[in-house]
């Protein structure tokens, strides 16, 4: 296979973005068409790529990229295997639907061209992450998705909260990316390569110092923590919901946030090394704790998008946990199904918000089942998949595989997973009961009407894989399913999740049926464990501390030296450079002369 096909897939969206940006003002109306056209084409090409690849794993190169002599020779290359093609399909499929949905959702927006350019840029960078055959290239696209996500979150930058959220997302991600970069450099140092294949063959062939390896893996994992919003860098994702809802669906639910998981799966051969057991443990626990923590937070949110955002965090936690448990197939399986139903839920919520005249508070909705029957139906399908209704939904199958892995691994993680499943069932029931049942509690919900067909279409389309996505006849075509180990499989996970589901749903139903106000108030959860506040005070404390240190240094140097009678010296140290540059030409001339003398003396002393 040549590199032509993947290169086309990669650069098509970039071309679209460039084209949109370069469109003259009066033709900006064409922007959506260009963008949608490119994404549809990319989807078709991805299907072709998937069909051609099958179960092969190849690496193709487009050309030389960086050539630093002996230090580093790097190509623009694509590593194409079932994992990559499967991910490509997810990205382009959901991307296409989100583009379609956006056509209606952003119809009246002034910055439409900018929005679609951002979407195309995102598609380009995400494709890059998926196809890249080396960490350096992946890192670049990693940064680019960060930029496009920043641009899209801050799309309504006139709104202060949107601008702040964009900034927060950007900065938080930089922290993770910094770790990622260090990790790449450490791996490069250890193995002399940054391509996946190169690193793999290198670690197979030699032993890397265990401490170094663990540190490198954890640094790389930092990148995933930032991008997939794991504890403790999760704070940006809920705020990122300030962006347009289709963006939340595409970027902050289905694809980009999953990039962290995808990247960890790409390098999972490292985790499988015996020396990396500690790192794997840390990763699994990070995922598990995030899952539990986010689910807890979700139970007390009132903003429909925030609930879904925390649910996304929680599901990502599952995936990361699976990666840490060396169950990469399970992780990717869940990524695959989650993408569909979470996109469905987000687009559904978008439709609801649109219908309710941009109302996001679930307590101001109510009775929507009668007003928007079709939307409600699709949303319920998504909910069913998320809470893993047994046998008929995709979420059931994928979550089962993760719980199996956790159970097989033993220990506390399994219980954390099961508890999270219970919480998931509970908060989703709460959401549905409050929003869809009862009577409209606000003007917006009262005048809600069914959304236009172009918005409904993606919902209906997404509902299909949300249901069948987990069946092996479907999923098995696109990805490697976890080995079904029926003989030894314990029934414990299944029973546990059934109990969790039943108890969660019934508890939610009992608590919230017919309520107008939230009967439970746990401010710890509603305020998300005060982590935002903690960070805010940490940052300001840090600034204070730096200021104080500088202050003490000032005192130490200026006063300390002054006391010792060296104030003249201190003055020279402090203001010297500035004083020299006083603007006096004569002084400059004099200093020039001094410089000449110094230079001459140095030169002649080198004799």
């Amino acid at each position: 296979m040549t590199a032509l096909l993947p290169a086309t897939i990669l650069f098509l969206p970039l071309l679209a973005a460039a084209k949109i940006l370069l469109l003259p003002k009066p033709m900006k109306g064409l922007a959506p068409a260009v963008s949608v056209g490119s994404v549809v084409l990319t989807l078709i090409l991805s299907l072709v790529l998937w069909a051609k690849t099958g179960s092969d794993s190849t690496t193709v190169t487009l050309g030389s990229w960086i050539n630093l002599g002996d230090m580093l020779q790097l190509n623009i290359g694509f590593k194409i295997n079932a994992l990559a093609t499967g991910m490509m399909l997810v990205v382009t499929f959901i991307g296409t639907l989100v583009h379609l949905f956006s056509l209606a959702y952003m119809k009246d927006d002034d910055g439409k061209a900018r929005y679609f350019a951002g979407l195309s840029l995102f598609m380009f960078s995400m494709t890059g992450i998926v196809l890249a055959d080396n960490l350096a290239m992946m890192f670049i696209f990693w940064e680019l998705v960060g930029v496009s996500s920043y641009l899209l979150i801050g799309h309504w930058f006139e709104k202060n909260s949107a601008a702040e959220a964009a900034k927060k997302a950007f900065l938080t991600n930089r922290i993770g990316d910094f770790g990622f970069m260090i990790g790449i450099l450490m791996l490069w140092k250890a193995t002399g390569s940054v391509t996946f294949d190169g690193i793999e063959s290198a670690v197979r062939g030699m032993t890397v110092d265990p401490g170094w390896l663990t540190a490198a893996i954890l640094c790389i994992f930092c990148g995933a923590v930032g991008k997939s919003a794991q504890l403790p860098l999760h704070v940006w994702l809920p705020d990122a919901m300030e962006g347009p809802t289709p963006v939340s669906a595409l970027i902050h639910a289905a694809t980009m946030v999953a990039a962290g998981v995808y990247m960890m799966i790409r390098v999972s051969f490292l985790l499988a090394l015996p020396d990396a057991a500690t790192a794997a443990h840390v990763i699994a626990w990070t995922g598990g704790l995030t899952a539990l923590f986010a689910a807890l937070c979700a139970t007390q949110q009132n903003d429909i998008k925030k609930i879904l955002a925390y649910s996304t965090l929680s599901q990502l936690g599952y995936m990361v946990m699976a990666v840490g448990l060396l169950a990469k197939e399970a992780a990717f399986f869940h990524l695959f199904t989650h993408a569909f139903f979470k996109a469905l839920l987000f687009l559904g919520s978008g439709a609801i918000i649109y219908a309710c005249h941009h109302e996001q508070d679930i307590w101001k909705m109510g009775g929507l089942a009668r007003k928007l029957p079709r939307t409600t139906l699709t949303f319920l399908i998504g909910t069913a998949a998320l809470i893993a209704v047994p046998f008929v939904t995709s979420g059931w199958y994928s979550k089962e595989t993760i719980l199996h892995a956790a159970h097989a691994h033993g220990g506390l993680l399994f219980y954390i997973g099961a508890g999270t499943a219970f919480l998931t069932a509970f908060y989703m029931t709460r959401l549905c009961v409050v929003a869809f049942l009862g009577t409209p509690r606000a003007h917006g919900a009262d005048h809600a009407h069914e959304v236009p067909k172009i918005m409904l279409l993606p919902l209906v389309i997404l509902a299909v894989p949300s249901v069948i996505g987990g069946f092996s006849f479907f999923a098995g075509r696109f990805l490697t399913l976890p080995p079904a180990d029926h003989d030894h499989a314990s029934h414990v996970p299944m029973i546990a999740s059934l109990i969790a589901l039943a108890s969660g749903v019934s508890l939610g139903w009992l608590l919230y049926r017919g309520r107008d106000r939230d009967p439970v108030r746990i401010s710890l959860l509603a305020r998300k464990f005060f982590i935002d506040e903690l960070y805010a005070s940490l940052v300001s404390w840090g600034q204070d501390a730096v200021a104080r240190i500088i202050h003490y240094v000032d005192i130490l140097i200026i006063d300390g030296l002054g006391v010792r009678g060296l104030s003249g010296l201190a003055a020279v140290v402090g203001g010297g450079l500035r004083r020299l540059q006083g603007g006096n030409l004569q002084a400059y001339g004099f200093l020039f002369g001094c410089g000449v003398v110094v230079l001459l003396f140095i030169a002649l002393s080198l004799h």
Partner: protein
Amino acid sequence: MLLFGVGVVVNRNPVASALCLVVSFVGLASLFISLDAHFLGIIQILVYTGAVMVLFLFIIMLLDLKEEARRALNAWAVAGGAVVALCLVGTLLHVLGTFPKGEATLPPLVVPEGQTYEDTKALGTLLFTEYVFHVQVIGLLLLGATVGVVALSKKEASK
């Protein structure tokens, strides 16, 4: 000549400084001529004394610059300048001391039989064969300077 050079620096009256510089340049020209660079000597006088220094004097007189006489010299600057100057002279002497070729006395010119040494001709030949390109660059330099002088000085008609 050196004395007049010093005169440029120490004279408080700009006109006197400029006149010292004129004399200094004339002395320089005579040194050129003593080194058999007749053409350069003449050019030195024509351009420097004839044009450049006239311009200087012209400007000095137009601007009526006698102000510095009323201002005290900066003692620090003088002292510092003197130190730097001494250091430079010391360095120079040291360098010249290590330069054995410098002890050579003026070697006689070897002019082929039946010809005279005409340096203008030799320079002209070189200038318009090997260095004709450089002449164009100088031309551009003069053009830039002309444009600059006009643009910086000419008051545009404000009608």
